[in-house]
């Protein structure tokens, strides 16, 4: 498979704290990659650098051959790299459906299809790029895909934790990402629900055709769903291999798996 995302030699320091030390990883198209490591190991810093929230001190990031190191988060999103958040970032005063419609509106506006002078009734009738359906149909389609249709008219503020997580991920899918970074998609979700939610998310995301990187602390989830594991420790990648090999690596066992189990 061709490489879709290529990070080379990323370094990032915050004063005396080094959050990334020579981090390099090439991600193949359609891969499902698990990022593991203890808190402060550098996983979220890696995601933040890829999505433009943090700029690496040195090193370059290429997406489909294009250097995206200096781009702003919104520009990176428009290129096709989207992210979800450890703490869901929703429009909490709006309904679930309206949350989705804000996202669809942004996509149409970026495609210059949502302006004041759009022909027709208004922008809702325009086919959304990547979906070929009008805005409301896209919103309904994604809500159904993530099992959120029953919550359609509920206010986002009063949703249960797992549903908030799913909505947060569904929102990222509106932009039809080619690479999706999920920051702890199962955190705050009960142990029984974890596998079900992860299965639903991955099914939905893969059906939309995205390459996935997910941060996860539960090694059972990692070994079941990841095709490849990047293990972080002290700002470095200490293992990069399929889960069966990476999770047996002595250094990973000492610094990541042992601590995760503890």
């Amino acid at each position, binding site marked *: 498979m061709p490489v879709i995302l290529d990070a080379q030699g990323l370094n990032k320091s915050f004063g005396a704290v080094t959050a990334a030390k020579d981090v390099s990883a090439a991600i193949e198209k359609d891969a499902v990659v698990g990022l593991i490591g203890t808190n402060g190991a550098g996983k979220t810093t890696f995601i933040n650098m890829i999505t433009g929230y943090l700029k690496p001190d040195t090193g370059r990031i290429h997406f489909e051959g294009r250097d995206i190191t200096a781009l702003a*988060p*919104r520009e990176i*999103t428009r290129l096709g790299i989207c992210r979800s958040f450890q703490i869901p970032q929703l*429009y909490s005063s*709006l309904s679930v459906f309206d949350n989705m419609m804000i996202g669809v*509106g942004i996509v149409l*506006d970026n495609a210059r299809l949502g302006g004041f002078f759009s022909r027709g009734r208004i922008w809702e009738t325009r086919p959304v790029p990547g979906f070929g359906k009008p805005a409301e149909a896209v919103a309904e389609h994604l809500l159904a895909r993530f099992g959120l249709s029953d919550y359609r008219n509920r206010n986002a503020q009063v949703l249960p934790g797992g549903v908030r997580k799913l909505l947060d991920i569904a929102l990222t899918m509106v932009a039809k990402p080619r690479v999706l970074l999920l920051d702890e998609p199962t955190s705050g979700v009960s142990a029984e629900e974890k596998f079900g939610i992860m299965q639903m998310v991955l099914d939905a995301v893969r059906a939309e055709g995205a390459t996935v990187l997910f941060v996860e602390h539960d090694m059972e989830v990692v070994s079941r769903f990841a095709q490849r594991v990047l293990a972080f420790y002290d700002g470095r990648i200490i293992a990069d291999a399929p889960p069966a090999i990476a999770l047996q690596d002595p250094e990973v066992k000492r610094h990541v798996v042992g601590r995760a189990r503890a």
Partner: protein
Amino acid sequence: MFLVTMACANGLVALGLMLLLRAGLVSFGQALYFCLGAYAAGGIGRFFGVSDIFLQMLAGALTAGFFAFVLGFLLARYRGIFFGLLSLALSMILYGLLVKSQALGSTDGFNIQPSTLFGIRPGPEWVRYSVLASAAIVALGLALAVHRYLRTPLGQLGPAIKDNEIRVEYMGASARRAVHVKYVIAAVLAGVGGALAATTVGHIDPQMAFWTTSGEFIFITILAGIGSVVAPFAGALLYGIIHTTAYDLSPNTWQMSLGLSLLLIIVFLPEGLWSLVRKMRMQNARHS
């Protein structure tokens, strides 16, 4: 008639404030653009002899829009109290400049000749009607345009920016650009409102940029609520009625009556008068 015309003028300014408030931004200095619009309208009459009411409003809109476009690059970076106080500071700078400007009448300001309409000068008894009709047409047109704008993706970003700016950015939109656009639209509306107020009153002075004027517009916006483009005009009319009645009944303590009415609104109708309309609609929907 004066009250209704002024309600159109003040309502336009409040309509702009409503746009900003939906995005969680309170401008304490909207009088800056109200005053710029008024002086632009007065200026083209005083220096170029143009007194057509539509050209006056256009001059007000363009002047306010131009300044908002330039200042917007600075203001769109700020949120919360910083946005509010920065806008206040800018309006007070204009006030200070106008007070020192002899050519524009300093603290006294100057008078504006009665407006013409497409080159025709209406008879003295018709001027007020022509101004009212023009004000109503322009206010209606702009309210419809704002209504349409609120249904565009950029327009509906207001509540999204208020709720979660991080998410807006990570979905591929520029919150700063959206705020900048809203700021310019609000200024254009205030500029047209200022031009209308100038020609309705027939006199302009630096008091139009003073912070208490900005306060009156915020008063109207809170009184009205932000649920509909009609609300600011209804709020402006009610404000005019409260203001006039309070002044007639008690010339020395009219501010107290205004303060009391605002207090009542905040306590009993925190979402403004428009929330009453919404409640009535919901009840009707339930009954039917």
